[in-house]
């Protein structure tokens, strides 16, 4: 979509140049962070990563249109969404490095974040299993008459799970304010979307009387336009809505797989179809920024990330004695006994 066309539609008429630039900066920060983490993984500094490259724009659009009171049930590939909602780089690194400042005390693999202060709930590895929880949270918001809605993100693979279908059904039956956003990046590890489903994902809500819409998730303006319409519906209390954002997984599923084994298509970082490049081109065409500005944004992002990671790497690892905490509110005799056994075996 053309920027001018979007402006003419009036829906993003309030999107200022500053907001566009800010979104662009977050996208560059997310991309630069992702590259940094992959390199750190290769050096053995970070244990694992699910690369986020290619999916920045839809995530940033969600972040821009979400409110502080909204609860986000995100999935493990949502780095730009975290940044857009204000999660500091330092806390992201603390989790990725499992250092003693990690809010989750080193218990989760990298990318399995929980940032309660930013209403990012908690991420699990089994795909789609957060979706029924998202519905329960929406029930709680409605029952307690609190502000906010629930936004749940997930990949195309999740749409084949029982959890996805149960969640859509329940959200519909109780008319709950949940925005479901499928970030369809074309791949579930090695399985292309064409083999994941023969249906169109945004139409899957129809079985539950949930409206759906497909947006170009690689384009900031399209994403904002589509999401805004869906969010208006959800915030008006009309019920849940399903958005399918078509996007593209530039990298592998995770640092543990080699996509050359199963795919030949490729959009590389910086190619014309790269969502960040598309926003750059739009901003340059509209005269919002010039090429030197683009260069300075990238340089600043790299500097900030390098500096933050160096700083967070000096924080000591998590104390192993905390390993037995938080299984329950108070440990039972079993955890206490095993903690003693572990300490005595040193």
């Amino acid at each position, binding site marked *: 979509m053309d920027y001018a066309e979007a402006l003419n539609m009036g829906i993003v008429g309030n999107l200022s140049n500053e907001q566009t630039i800010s979104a662009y900066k977050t996208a560059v920060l997310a991309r630069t962070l992702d590259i940094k983490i992959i390199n750190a993984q290769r050096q053995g500094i970070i244990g694992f990563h699910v690369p986020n490259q290619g999916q920045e724009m839809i995530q940033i659009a969600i972040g821009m249109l979400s409110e502080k009171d909204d609860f986000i049930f995100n999935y493990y590939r949502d780095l730009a969404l975290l940044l857009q909602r204000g999660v500091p780089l330092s806390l992201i690194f603390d989790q990725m490095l499992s250092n003693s400042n990690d809010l989750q005390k080193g*218990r989760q693999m990298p990318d*399995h974040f929980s940032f309660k202060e930013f209403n990012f709930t*908690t991420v699990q590895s089994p795909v789609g299993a957060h979706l029924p929880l998202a519905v*329960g949270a929406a029930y709680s918001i409605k029952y307690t008459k609190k502000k906010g809605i629930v936004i749940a993100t997930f990949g195309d693979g999740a749409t084949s799970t029982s959890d996805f279908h149960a969640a859509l059904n329940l959200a519909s039956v*109780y008319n709950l304010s949940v925005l479901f956003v499928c970030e369809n990046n074309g791949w579930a590890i090695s399985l292309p979307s064409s083999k994941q489903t023969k249906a169109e994902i945004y139409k899957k809500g129809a079985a539950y009387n949930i409206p759906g819409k497909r947006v170009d998730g690689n384009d900031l303006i399209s994403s904002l336009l589509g999401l805004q319409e869906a969010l208006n519906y959800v915030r008006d209390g009309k019920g849940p809505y399903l958005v399918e954002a078509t996007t593209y997984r530039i990298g592998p599923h995770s640092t543990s797989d080699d996509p050359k084994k199963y795919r030949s298509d490729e959009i590389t970082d910086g190619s014309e179809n790269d969502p960040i490049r598309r926003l750059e081109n739009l901003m340059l065409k509209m005269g919002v920024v010039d090429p030197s500005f683009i260069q300075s944004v990238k340089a600043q992002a790299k500097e900030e990330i390098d500096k933050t990671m160096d700083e967070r790497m000096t924080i000591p690892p998590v104390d192993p004695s905390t390993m037995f905490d938080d299984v329950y509110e108070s440990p039972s005799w079993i955890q206490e006994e095993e903690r003693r056994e572990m300490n005595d075996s040193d």
Partner: protein
Amino acid sequence: MTQINMVQSLNKSLDQLMAEDERVIVLGEDVGRDGGVFRVTDTLLNKYGEERVIDTPLSELGIIGMAAGMAMHGLKPIAEIQFQDFIYPAFDQIVNNISKIRYRTGGRYSIPLVIRTPYGGGVRGGLYHSQSGESYFVHTAGLTVITPSNPYDAKGLLVSAYKRNDPVIFLEPKRLYRSVKAEVPDGLFEIEIGKAAKLKEGDEVSIITYGSMVPTVMNTVEKNGINADVIDLRTLLPMDIDAIIKTAKKTGRVITVHEAPRTLGVGAEISALIAERALDSLLAPIVRVAGYDIPFSYSHEDLNIPSEKRIMSAINRVLEY
């Protein structure tokens, strides 16, 4: 106090908890208009409305997952799974989500959720209305597993489960729902989680049991005049280690009795705990009386559930050793 059965006791407890605490939500299949297939939630819909007593679609993972989301965000859901045999679609939610959310968020989120479900055989329910699957849950850190054996404990343990800030699997022995009556105080009271009940003092043999097998064990020892120490565990995770070791040391002869299959059953864990801590006190091998390691046959349920005869045979075996 009048005598009431376990269904009446649970029903009244739920009613009182809902009256006292607006955060309590009851949800499950047929819990509203039908009052639950065993009537444990009878009349609650009329009293508290469909926002708090939710007849859910037929999706166990949906019930548990939705309840977990409610619990994370300030409510106190009490979910019902119609039969424990039907809980397996929600197994991922139980094992991978609700039992791990406190841990994986560094203690910053918790899931105060009670999952009530009837278990065990004896109602002519065949393969899928008779199972005793407690071991699946006892094997999962983060869960608390409780099973009452009488109407009094049912109330005290349910109240304690409700007060706990962690997920509880509350296994209701359906065979005892209406067959056992007891005096139950009108007011709310608690029974400490993790504490067993001593049902009978004795010196010659220890019988460690719980839930659905308790009346059968008591009938056996009373009819046969056995000088037995009888323990009702009440909580299966965490088990009352002190009560288990104390009785093993006292009598030196231990029998475990449960309806669940023997292999990796709760009796196996009890045996291991005793072997590790009280081997020197043992005068006979520990004997496990359990359901057989077969699916729960419709026609032969009386043979599968440990009988007084089988329990007596085990008692004789350890006494004569």
